[in-house]
């Protein structure tokens, strides 16, 4: 596969490490009353869709940025590549 890195342009996917579903950015509030339940769901349950999937890839053999790919799990078509940090900020993550 070829990943079109937002900064570096097209790179072979072999340079990257795939972590999985981008929901792993949505880490729950550790102080919530039901934090344990939320963390179990966060840590272990996945949509695992057959189709479009937002997922985290890390450019380990490159610039070490984490990326969010929108990739189809049936065709492997990659329709969008974003810097994960931008996505995290857009989702309201802070410090």
């Amino acid at each position, binding site marked *: *596969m*070829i990943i079109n890195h937002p900064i570096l342009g097209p790179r*072979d996917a072999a340079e990257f*490490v795939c*972590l999985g579903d981008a929901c*792993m*950015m949505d*880490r729950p509030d*550790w*102080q919530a009353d039901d*934090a*344990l339940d939320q*963390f*179990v769901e*966060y*840590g272990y349950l996945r949509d695992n869709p057959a189709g479009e999937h937002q997922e*985290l890839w*890390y450019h*380990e053999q490159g610039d*070490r*940025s*984490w990326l969010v790919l929108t990739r189809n799990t049936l*065709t*492997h*078509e*990659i329709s969008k590549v974003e*810097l*994960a*940090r931008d996505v*995290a*900020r857009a989702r309201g*993550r*802070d*410090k």
Partner: protein
Amino acid sequence: MSQVNRIKGGQIDRSQTWDFTFNSKKMQGHPGDTLASALVANGQKLVGRSFKYHRPRGIFSAGSEEPNALVQLRKGAHCEPNTRATVAELFDGLSATSQNHRGSLDYDLMAVTDFMSPFLSAGFYYKTFMWPRKFWEKIYEPIIRSSAGLGRLSMEEDPDTYDKGFLHCDLLVIGAGPAGLSAALSAARSGARVILADEDFTPGGRLNGETFELGNMSGSDWAALTVAELSAMDNVRVMTRTTIYGAYDHGTYGALERVTDHLATSGDQPRQILWRIYSKRAVLAAGATERPIAFGNNDRPGVMMAGAVRTYVNRFGATPGQQVGVFTNNDDGWRTAADLAAKGVNVIAIIDSRDAPAVCDVPGARHIRNAAVMDTAGRKGLKSVTLTDGQVIPVDCLAVSGGWNPNVHLTCHQRGRPEWRDDLSAFVPGGDLPVGMAVAGAANGSMTLAAALAEGHAQAAAQLKDIGIKAAKADVPQAEDEPRECAAFWHVKDSTKRAWVDLQNDVTVKDVKLANTEGFRSVELLKRYTTMGMATDQGKTSNIAGLAILAEAAGKTIPEVGTTIFRPPYTPIPMGALGGRARGKDFRPYRLTPSHKWAEENGATFVEVGNWLRSQWFARPGEKGWRDSVDREVEMTRGSVGICDVTTLGKIDVQGKDAAAFLNKVYANGFAKLDVGKVRYGIMLREDGICYDDGTTARMSENHFVMTTTTANAVLVFRRMEFARQCLWPNMDVHLISTTDGWAQFAVAGPNARNLLRKVVDEAHDMSNEAFPFMACGEVTVCGGMPARLFRISFSGELAYEIAVPARYGNSMMSVLMQAGAEYDAVPYGTEALGVMRIEKGHAAGNELNGQTTAHNLGMGRMVSQKKECIGNVLSQRPEMQREDAIKLVGFKPVDPSETLIAGSHFINKGAEANTANDQGWMTSVAYSPTLGHSIGLGFIKSGDTRKGEIVRAVSPLHGVEMEVEIVSAHFIDPEGERLRA
């Protein structure tokens, strides 16, 4: 009898004659020959034996689809099994032998299976060989295994080398037949970066095997001229002897270039190169493969594909027979008859299954219409054929044409499904092609020469337009454009004899019908039950016929039955090529520590630690074994001072205003309040609450920390920290740099560690215990001004420091430390002594931090803060992970001190049966402690922290050993830590 079947013409170089041997028989051929064409020229009919029935077989095709003519090529370690003679280029001195027979090729003892064939129908082995049970592995299976298989490996290491390379292009053209050449020419003239690849050594595809005219020249001349033009262009790479074997995601194609397979030796060249081609667009112009018709005993040597017969005659100047018959269901088969007659070969009869007039005039040949071949005779070489009306026609070669199947293989590699076209009675590429691929020519069902040329141009132009390149104008020569009629005809139903569908795997029409009868009615079940299409030719000549016969038996249409799809590789690829240079010592790169050279010079034995090579111990003369060396290194370190290169530990530089707050989130214990100039031990959890790494982090200044990780997890920790920084807390002001390779770091341990370092660290730095106590850190200079970092940390339990200098000074730093330590009898120590001392001290390492254990298990549960946000603390609180009776890390010693503990033994309570239910835990690490004079161990055991003094059994049924051990503190030496604070 040399080259008895050599005739005039062809693209071979008769000015040179080469000798070669087949089964030690001396033969001759010419440059431009394949092994198969040379065998044809020499009149060698019988070339191999089939897989199951060991039937005598001859050459069947002239290309990579060959099911029969498989040979062992070359000798000794260079011997390669299963080579298709039809694609092996002849070279001077070539030696080939036939395979899959016991005794000689002519008198194969295993041919007895042919007479047993009624009992060996499809799937017979699923129904028997079950009694008695023990006989399968001992008797039945060994017999089956030794008679199965085809060629033989030499069992020696492959002596050749293989390279890998990467190529990029705008347009990849797969196949250099008329469609491919036309596509490549259009694209090349438009300035696009073009790669044209063809599996053959002479580009041109069918143009070389046919007698086509293009414009006013022969097809093969046009091909040669076109290739010459392409080769001269800077933007074009013409790759012959190169198979595009797979279509992968996003325009990536796998290609295998055979660099030296046509030479007697590889010399200093790689035998083959595995290319990964990144294309923006691709045109598949892979042509078509002729398909046979199944009839009784259609597998005799001499029964061949009609197109192949004329390829041998036209291209190679060799005729497969002197009295040739043609059996066809289509106009194209007539071309064989006409071409042979034109070369003076006797064509006896043209047997056409259609009730149609002659397609052309073939001098001397009978035209038998509305007829079919029902049976053949001639065990080791065809003698005659019997027609459905009973007449027997003596022939020594039968050219069979059942029509042509487009080579759709690469269109299926991403699980695209081909579509049926009734007019061609064939599958053509479906709509779901790999992204960026277009198909042209016969591969796309465009079966005439003119159509192939036109479509090649058109597809290339369309593909280039997609990527913003304007195509050059069409310049397609005049060519034949008469559609050739073909009637669907798969097998001769009147045949009562066995009729082969898959020649190599010996699958007959009856087998297909039996599979249908028994309920294996999906084409995939048919394949699996009969093994049809599973041979080395991947069913290139058999799949469609099998499908058609299954459809007929099931009363369905072919599209209803479906098609099996093709998988990579298009043709088989040597494992050596796929492995490339990554073998032997070069399997993975070595990482060497900065003091590697010094260690080599000083007698180190090295050990693989991940990709690192580390010093394991430093043997001295007179030492009888590794234990002598290791014991001495421990004793000398604990007695005075020892030095160890610990560079391999991961080092991460953490800087920024939020660095402290960030570390507080990635470590389970607190780091926010660590003082500047201090080091702290920390444990890291995964989000699931498991402790996966530990190490120390030093606060060099307010916003600058230096972290160490374990050697094994250096990459993983960095990855996860970047994840935390970029994805979880993106607004933190913190930056990470991996500095593992930037700094050489040495542990200096032992009671004289301070005295030694005092001589190396510059005077200005106060190294007293008061000024630089345990867990202090700081920037210092050494050797008169060279920058260094000093940490007072201890893995050994001794008074110890780690000193870091820029990596390029690492080797000399080791010398400096050893020279400075000479007066203290300083000793270099390796990973073994390091391991012994950490076990004596009770420190956890990889065997304890194995990704399955919690801080609670490790006895560090209280370090996991619940008062801050940090990775893993929430899930670490799950009830099963906080059990009172959880396994706990403790020490073990043998009740009988002369016994040697075994890492990996399990603990069973005294008096209990040794089984899974009674399993109490396991011994993780053991060592002989020279300090204590007996074997010691660390291990996890249920409720270990409350069981000290209890005796349990350490069992290792794997060794047949069981011993009593006492549960003790993991801190075997200096439990109060007085030494490291000294």
